[in-house]
């Protein structure tokens, strides 16, 4: 752990990733203290200062009802990070368990579980999430549900492939010979060997969940106003391109910064932990 961190800070690119993620997380957690106009995260109007290009004190400019964009971007980070954490906290245990069971047990269980996984993987991710959001009301909780539903199969696939290789290894055979239970073998013997790959994928996915969630809200199927959200800010601002460019560019770059940061760290972790794709 200490060694991993030392390697991460030694490489300039992964160091940049750590800095970007730190900035994003820090500003989301301490948004109440950092944001110059915390009340602008809600339904506030200030028509005296509407649609202002970036200039002090509005470093990202203001939106069409005069709210500070910088404040709204920071609060949107908070929503994005919560969404990412909740989605992964639900999707990863589900996907990993199914992958372990399918890979270790094999036979009919494997066939049924993996075909089920294929069904979810056969609908383009965004389309699946969109159809779920279309049926449910567009709220934060339903957005998490929709993204979770499309996310778990990727962990199933990842863990399934590792498990199939690991179950032929000597240590698994040894555990079987001394009569260890299936549960013990799956979760205590095989699972620890999947952890590096899972951790790497989770780091990368933190960024990609933010990306997909912003895509959903860009289409109007995510968090609803007045809650600040990066995707819906870009969508609202796109109507006023190219004149009011700051309405779309800053929220768009904010997505890029967060996802890029997680990707840089994930990439470096993959090299360090030697985890498979």
């Amino acid at each position, binding site marked *: 752990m200490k060694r991993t961190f030392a390697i991460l800070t030694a490489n300039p690119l992964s160091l940049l990733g750590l800095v970007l993620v730190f900035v994003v997380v820090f500003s989301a957690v301490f948004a109440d203290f950092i944001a110059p106009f915390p009340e602008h995260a809600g339904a506030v109007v200030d028509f005296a200062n509407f649609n202002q290009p970036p200039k002090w004190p509005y470093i990202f400019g203001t939106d069409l009802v005069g709210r500070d964009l910088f404040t709204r971007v920071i609060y949107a980070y908070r929503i994005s990070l919560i969404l990412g954490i909740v989605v992964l906290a639900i999707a990863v245990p589900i996907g990993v368990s199914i992958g372990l069971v399918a890979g270790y047990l094999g036979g009919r269980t494997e066939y049924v579980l993996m075909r089920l996984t294929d069904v979810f993987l*056969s*609908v383009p991710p965004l*389309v699946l999430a969109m*159809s779920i959001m279309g049926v449910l009301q567009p709220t934060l909780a339903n957005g998490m549900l929709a993204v979770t539903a499309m996310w778990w199969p990727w962990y199933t696939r990842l863990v399934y492939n590792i498990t199939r290789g690991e179950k032929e290894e000597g240590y698994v055979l040894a555990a079987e010979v001394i009569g260890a239970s299936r549960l013990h073998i799956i979760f205590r013997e095989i699972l620890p060997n999947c952890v590096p790959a899972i951790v790497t994928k989770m780091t990368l996915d933190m*960024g990609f969940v933010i990306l997909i969630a912003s895509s959903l809200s860009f*289409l109007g199927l995510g968090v609803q106003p007045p809650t600040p959200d990066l995707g819906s800010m870009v969508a609202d601002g796109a109507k006023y391109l190219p004149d009011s*460019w700051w309405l779309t560019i800053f929220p768009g770059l904010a997505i890029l910064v967060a*996802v890029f940061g997680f990707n840089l760290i994930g990439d470096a972790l993959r090299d360090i932990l030697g985890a498979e794709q």
Partner: protein
Amino acid sequence: MNPLARLLAKRLATSLIVLIGVSMLIFAIARIIPGDPARIALGPNATQEQIANLRAELHLDDNIVVQYGYFIADVARGDLGISLYTNRPVTADIALYLPATLELVLVAGIMMVGIGLPLGIWSARWRGRAADNLIRLVSLLGVSAPSFVWAVILMLLFAFYLPLFPIAGRISDSYAIAPVTGFLLADTLIQGDLRAFGNAAWHVVLPAFALALSGIGQAARLTRANMVETYDKPYIEMAQSYGFPARRIANRYAFRPSLIPSLTIIGLDFAAMLGNAFLVEAIFAWPGLSRYGVAVILRKDLNAIVGTVLIISATFLLVNIIVDLLIALLNPRIRYSQRPA
């Protein structure tokens, strides 16, 4: 039997199972909808009787398994029902909008292969040097933003500040092209109108590039990663010690083994693009499935939602079968084996 034919038969069979699974999944999602689709379709002024009639007509009062039975019987006849939003058959609506989306996705797919693979090869050939670091950084940036952000950035840079490309649309209004296939790039060529073809091609560049960017990054990254591993193999060392030109080693010997994993990822990215096209179309006012798809979702138009998702999934499965066959063709272990892999 020919191993490729067997592979194709096997893939078609599993795809059919998966497609039936997808239809059940989408159907189940569409039927747990809150709110009465019949009431939404008829509007607030409908009488109780009208609503009851429409509900009966749509089989909404039956058990969900029975409803699915009706639905599958219709799908088998090529009937996806009537869209409650446009009052036209869903198949007609999709036939109208899908070609524009597919055209965009196909051009983006060509860009992904045509730009992503060479970038990956260069990066691996110059691994550790400045060119490699630059390509890796750019590829990672490409992957790190949703396509609508790239669409906005590209549009501002290359359509507005530097007016090299049109801001929106599929073709300039001055060209009247009678639809034959619905693919403008094909229709203009069929009708022998080269200027219209050029105009349509000029319109597709920016949206397709915005859509392709993350795929380009993905393809370049994966190709590089696989090739760097291959460069450590003894046969590459031998080729180097024989003094084969570096370019030939990169393009012929190091690239070939990494083509198969790259193609797999390209297939998956192609699927993602079918969904992401929705995002790019919204920015560039591209008249594809996006506006229709979002409109029917917001109006809870069941038939249209189910139909759209089903058609997109079927397209995706088809692409994956093609990719699998390509991989089999390229892989001598599969091509020459008597038993399919």
